């Protein structure tokens, strides 16, 4: 199968969906003439014209709020916020408008809105570096995708655009260049269905996006020590595929969540609570979390590296759990 990058996969998904459905529009900062500051929307302006692909003012509240307005009137807007952190700049619009407009009007509207959110630590400082999935996962009315491979990025984005509910679509910037096999043609993936990326019997590790690549590396290293790590990639966080996870934990009896968000009330907290409620008898070792230790992301690399869960840290915890 051909390999393309995660960024290209997203570009393809956008192009295919815009081709398929004239109601899909795309806007954001620098997405048109430039093709996106991360080069994800290259060529789309040329292909679909300025009525459907356009640059916007630096007005995050409108970027998201107008997405809601356009969606309730029948368009299917795809909005790029330049950094995922900016969901908090458009907080009312993301959480109280996109998440609630349908509910508070008694289901009169559909809100087929996709907000693309480049995330992750690249040394761009506290306000341009985070993985704020937890804010979204906490909030009713929003779906949340966290694709980890090029193939998933494409398939989940195509699905997101077709869904009638608002989707916060996290794209990890450190993955944009990563190449993977991506099938040609119209492939989608359902939300709420995770995948076992690697099988193993000693410990279940939950990880996605950039942390998934670290978890996979750790698993390779641990294999040489005879520790078999099973790795679960949830693909979407809302909805979250607790079924597959619980099956895995039933087998391994131990669970570690590795994430790039803040630790306190990070995604791992919910996973821990789910396990405690629903897999209580099966876990025979303490649940563990590796995450950002509740400090903002600094600007210089060594400080960033200091707080990102490392391959070694993952190995260490897995060793403890497997001991």
């Amino acid at each position, binding site marked *: 199968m051909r390999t393309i990058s995660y960024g290209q996969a997203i570009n393809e998904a956008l192009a295919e969906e815009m081709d398929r459905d004239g109601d899909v529009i795309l806007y954001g900062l620098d997405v048109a003439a430039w093709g996106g500051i991360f080069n994800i929307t290259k060529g789309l302006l040329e292909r679909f014209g300025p009525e459907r692909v356009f640059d916007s003012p630096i007005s995050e509240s409108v970027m*998201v709020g107008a997405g809601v307005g356009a969606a309730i009137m029948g368009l299917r807007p795809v909005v790029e916020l330049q950094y995922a952190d900016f969901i908090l700049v458009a907080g009312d619009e993301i959480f109280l408008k996109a998440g609630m407009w349908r509910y508070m009007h008694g289901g009169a509207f559909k809100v087929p809105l996709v907000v693309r959110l480049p995330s992750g630590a690249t040394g761009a400082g506290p306000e341009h570096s985070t993985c704020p999935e937890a804010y979204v996962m906490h909030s009713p009315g929003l779906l949340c995708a966290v694709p980890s491979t090029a193939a998933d990025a494409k398939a989940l984005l195509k699905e997101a655009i077709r869904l009638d509910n608002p989707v916060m679509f996290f794209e990890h910037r450190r993955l944009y260049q990563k190449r993977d096999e991506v099938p040609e043609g119209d492939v989608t993936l359902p939300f709420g269905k995770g995948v076992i990326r690697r099988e193993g019997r000693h410990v279940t590790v939950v990880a996605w996006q950039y942390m998934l690549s670290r978890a996979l590396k750790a698993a390779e290293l641990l294999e040489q020590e005879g520790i078999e790590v099973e790795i679960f990639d949830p693909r979407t966080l809302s909805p979250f595929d607790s079924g597959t996870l619980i099956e895995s934990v039933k087998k391994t009896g131990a669970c570690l969540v590795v994430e790039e968000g803040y630790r306190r009330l990070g995604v791992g907290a919910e996973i821990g609570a789910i396990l405690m409620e629903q897999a209580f008898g099966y876990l025979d070792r303490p649940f563990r979390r590796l995450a950002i230790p509740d400090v903002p992301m600094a600007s210089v690399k060594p400080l960033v590296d200091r707080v990102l869960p490392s391959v070694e840290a993952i190995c260490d915890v897995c060793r403890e759990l497997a001991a």
Partner: protein
Amino acid sequence: MIQNDRLRDIFAKALLARSFEARLIKLTAEGFLPPLLHPGAGQEVAQIAALSALKRDDPVLYSHRGVAYMIARGTSLSAMIADMAGRAGGTNNGKGGIMHVVDLPNGIYGESGTLGGGLVVSVGMGMALRRRDPGRVVVHFFGDGASNRGTFHEALNWAAVQKLPCIYICENNGWAVSVPTSVSTAVENIADRAAGYGIPGVVVDGADPDAVMAAVANAARRARAGEGPSLIEIKATRLLGHYAADPQDYRADAASVAQRDPLAALRRRVIELGLLDEAEIEAMTAAHEAEIDLAVEAVKAAPPLDADQAFTDLYA
């Protein structure tokens, strides 16, 4: 000048809105309805005049002040009462109460409970109208207080630079709850802010339905022609409190304000013009009361919403 039948219609609807709202307040005092209504008394004439300059299906995002927007469009009275009362037959299944009335066939697209939240939503509605339904226009009502939200600026700039078919109507009633506009707002006329977006900004007297209609008609013509949004400021009169039971201690003009009631002025005018006489108005009022009675009875007879409605309508 507004044609006579149009003026008579505006008056009739404003009269109904006033009676209906008074009933809602009474039902609130009696405990049948929760105290969540922000009375629009004093602002109905302008609200209805504004909407009468538009087509029935031009989408409206309304402001929290009163029910006249819905009356103008013909939304069912009992549905609105049911929304407040939590009975079956409402428009939003208990989710949004009177703040989020929705009536799509009549172009009522609801409201943002966070002030200014609708401004940004309206921009996207304008985008969609232009693309899918050219010639239609979205109108958004909001207060002077809400005009100090950042969303006002972002929305008007965006709508202006993209020449979207949007009409922004600021009802400046001089107050945001207890805070006078002069304390919160650096300009006397909100309409002056239009200069920051290169769009027309006009001030109209909320007691002058001709002026309101003309301003909105002009804005609509511009919008439909692809010339972009307009900002219209209605100098409005809030006759009652922020909410019905507001003691209004902060308000020096609480007693005298009733003399500035635009509905009373319009009443005098329709009589002077010979469109209606006192007897006809009384008959009209009685008919309204009867209509309201029926609506109230219907709601009282309707079953309470199933509490499990709390779980529906979240995802499509």
